[in-house]
């Protein structure tokens, strides 16, 4: 299906696993004994949500109308109702509806 070799994807997954476990252990071993300044905490918190913003922005901008509508509606539902599953469901319905209406 794709030309990614087994070893490459194994390496990639191991890398991800090591980083995700490493960060959990690191907090326990080091950060708990080191006082973190409020600025550092603020930076880390903002950075780890901004990385997700950075990933989704080009998808929305370069996506079709269905993708954009899905993003707007899912975002609104997330803000108003605070229900993650409802907003994913709305997103799927909007994208499917848009494409059914405009492309078939």
């Amino acid at each position, binding site marked *: 299906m794709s030309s990614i070799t087994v070893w490459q994807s194994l390496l990639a997954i191991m890398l991800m696993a090591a980083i995700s476990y490493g960060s959990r252990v690191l907090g326990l071993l080091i950060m708990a004994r080191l006082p973190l300044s409020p600025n550092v905490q603020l930076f880390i918190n903002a*950075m780890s949500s901004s990385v997700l913003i950075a990933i989704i922005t080009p998808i929305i901008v370069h996506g079709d109308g269905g993708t954009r509508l899905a993003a707007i509606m899912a975002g609104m539902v997330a803000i108003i109702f605070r229900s*993650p599953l409802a907003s994913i469901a709305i997103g799927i319905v909007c994208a499917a509806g848009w494409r059914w209406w405009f492309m078939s």
Partner: protein
Amino acid sequence: MMLPLAAFTVAFGLAFGVAASHEGVTHWEAMLMSVLVFAAPSQFAALELWQTPLPMLALAATTLTIHTRHVLMSASLYPWLKALPLRQQFAVIFMLTDSNWAMALGEYHRGERNIGILLGGGIALWAAWIAGTGLGLAFGGGINQPERFGLDVIMLCFLLVIVIGGNPKALMILPWLAAAINALLAYWWLPPYLHVMVGALTGGMVAILLPKRWYKTGTS
């Protein structure tokens, strides 16, 4: 209290499985990710970066950026876990996720000292996440044109929901806006995948540059 969370986690795992089979990630890759990484945001982000050839550096950097948050979270659980032998601490902390961290910290502040809550809850969520992934892979693979059913937006909506749900502060609008703009500029004019780092660093910088009194007044 754990049960609704576990049900949610099955549903999210299902969403991940469906999205993974649509993004060209093979079944065993998706499954191994769910078993070993056990973190929805970085797994969904990895789906977006899963291209040929695999951008290892971008994958590692993105995972690292997303997970720096977990460093803070596990540090906050240290007072609770320090009673345990080191080996058990390492085992329990593997179960740390965004959702059970929030719950565990709440329990701790209410006076709960039983580590079983953290460990048992973690194992339940882990099992739910794996089961959900398996279900999603089983059903998602059978759909020929995922775009027609809107299944390609699952990942996008999920990441959006995590961002909004995890940080309900109006104060974050400025850092996020800056991150979005810079990420887009970097996406157009810088080498591939750098936009992720550019956006993340922009968001962090803007957050610490905002006047400190804004944070104190508790705008929400």
